[in-house]
């Protein structure tokens, strides 16, 4: 029982970070109808911005985190939209998907060239203390990761549902043409979606890097998991992405503990195929209602 609780809680903590990256995926999907294959690198890179702030610019950690967040929103939000997504939108979906694949190579190799190929220690945001709960050892970090992620998600949901800007963003995602007619500045709404995605990726990066360590190749795994989480949960729903992220985090640990460690990575994939077979809109998703 203690073991079950142990892996369950750790899984929830890791899963909450997958969820943050997965939400970003769904936002970009809704805003630009594209799959961002560089999403994993979007989570890898902000940790390096923080390291640059701390080690090269001599900032205290809190300032470096703000610096990293702002730089992420500029580079991974604004520049990504203006330099890559926008010029390619008239070309259709495929070129953009290919471009994000190339971007993932570019970010990965760039980080390696300029910061080195070795993993870097990354400062934790929370004290290293642990507590015992029903025989399971939980670190403050685990609990805080889960709480912070959930807080971000709740905040984001409130923003999207309760504020005017948030509702305009939703309208833009559902039907850009109608939103435009209703007087919504759709270009700005799309920009907001990209900025929020970048901010979420940066926050996920700050939370996971103390565990995952900062390394140029981290995005390969993270991106894949976030991607799968988003599809399993439902590609057009924020709550779907959360469910998908948490589910993968927990299932991964339970599989490794009780069934098979060799095939632990297979479980999310089998789940993915099963979801597409029986509920292609995702576990919590709703049908998109597009015809072509």
């Amino acid at each position: 029982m203690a073991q079950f609780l142990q892996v369950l809680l750790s899984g929830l903590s890791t899963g909450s970070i997958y969820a943050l990256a997965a939400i970003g995926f769904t936002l970009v999907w809704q805003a630009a109808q594209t799959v961002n294959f560089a999403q994993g690198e979007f989570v890898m890179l902000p940790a390096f911005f923080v390291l640059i702030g701390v080690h090269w610019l001599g900032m205290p950690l809190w300032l470096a985190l703000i610096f990293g967040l702002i730089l992420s929103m500029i580079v991974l939000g604004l520049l990504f939209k203006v330099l890559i997504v926008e010029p390619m939108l008239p070309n259709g979906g495929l070129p953009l998907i290919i471009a994000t694949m190339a971007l993932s190579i570019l970010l990965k190799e760039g980080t390696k060239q300029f910061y080195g190929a070795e993993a870097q220690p990354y400062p934790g945001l929370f004290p290293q203390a642990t507590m015992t709960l029903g025989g399971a050892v939980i670190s403050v970090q685990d609990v805080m990761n889960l709480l912070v992620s959930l807080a971000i998600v709740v905040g984001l949901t409130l923003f999207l549902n309760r504020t005017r800007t948030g509702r305009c963003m939703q309208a833009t995602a559902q039907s850009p043409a109608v939103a435009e007619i209703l007087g919504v500045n759709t270009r700005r709404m799309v920009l907001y979606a990209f900025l929020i995605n970048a901010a979420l990726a940066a926050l996920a990066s700050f939370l996971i890097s103390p565990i995952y360590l900062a390394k140029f190749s981290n995005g390969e795994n993270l991106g894949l998991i976030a991607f799968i989480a988003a599809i399993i949960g439902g590609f057009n729903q924020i709550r779907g992405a959360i469910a998908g992220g948490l589910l993968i985090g927990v299932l991964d640990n339970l599989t490794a503990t009780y069934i098979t460690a060799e095939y632990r990575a297979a479980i999310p994939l089998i789940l993915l195929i099963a979801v597409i077979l029986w509920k292609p809109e995702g576990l919590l998703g709703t049908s998109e209602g597009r015809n072509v």
Partner: protein
Amino acid sequence: MKFKPFAASVAVAAVAMFAVGARADDVVKLPCVCELSGAGAVSGTNFRDGAHIAIDEINAAGGILGKKIVMTDMDTQSDPQTSRALVQKAIDDGAYAIMGTVFSGSTIVNMIVAQQAGIPQFTGAEAPNITEKGNPYVFRTSSSAAKGVPALTPYFKDTLKASKVAVAWVNNDFGKGGHDVFVSQMKDAGIAVVADVPSEQGQADFSADVSKIKAAGAQAVFVYLNEEEAARFLKEAKKQGLTVPLVGEVTLTGQKVIDLAEGAAEGAYAHVGLATSAPLAPIQDFVKKFHDRYNRDTDHNGIKGYIGVYAVKYATEMIGKIDPQALADKLHGLTLDAAKYPGMLLTTSWDKTGELSRESFMTEVKDGKQVVIGTVPAN
């Protein structure tokens, strides 16, 4: 001041003339086929840079039999198929011997090409099967896992007096090699392996791995993971309060793991074939040389590249000619005494399969540093 540019241009011209003057057969070609990008970039780059230090030293002292060594760097991108093609290219270009590769999966592929051409190859790989294929042209620059891991058996059996152990390993060709040797060693020693936990490369969450080991009641754990994964494992072990001895081979007590684990590596124990922290003057001199030149620290792969090049120099001077076949023949069963051949750093021997034998070390992490606590004689 004015004549400085003039002097510089004369120097450049002189070098250029020298370069033109050095005809192809006046040089010894030792291409480095290494992992300079991709997953193995750290190991491969250290291996190459260590080799370049040796080459510059040897060239400054007159080269091999009066001929300069030329090393071209060839990047395998950590891909076995590319490495095979590059070994082919190196041989087409007239290689005398080949340095690399460091990845076992690559070496097992490309050594077939070197074997077909009869060109000696100095690999940094540690998988046991490389020297078990009867290839007379492949030579190691560090002992295989088949030799390293058994050095730990007495520690589990006699020092820890363990009857139940666990093994945590990374499920790739590197991890599998160490795992297989360990499991068979434990079987022979009559020790039960109560938890056998493979993990994925790049795995983030080690809570399931550690909790399984804890639940199985192992008295010691053999940790055979890559550096980042080892650090994550150590952190999780500390978090879950896994207090049994954690024992590794090579990586576990390395400085990189110590830094990444942020205190969680304290007390970890490892057998290291080539420790950069070994308290021996020649090794410390090399580590310092490396740092001075590249402004970063090397791991054991830097030493591998360095001694690989020196092995070629010493053996070639013994046979007195540039002849790949004679070089391979000479190296089988050869022992190079470090007192007489300082470039080897440690006295080194090769057997008839190309396997290497050399003194090795038991290390422990104390106060955030790798400390050598004992030596294991050459076997």
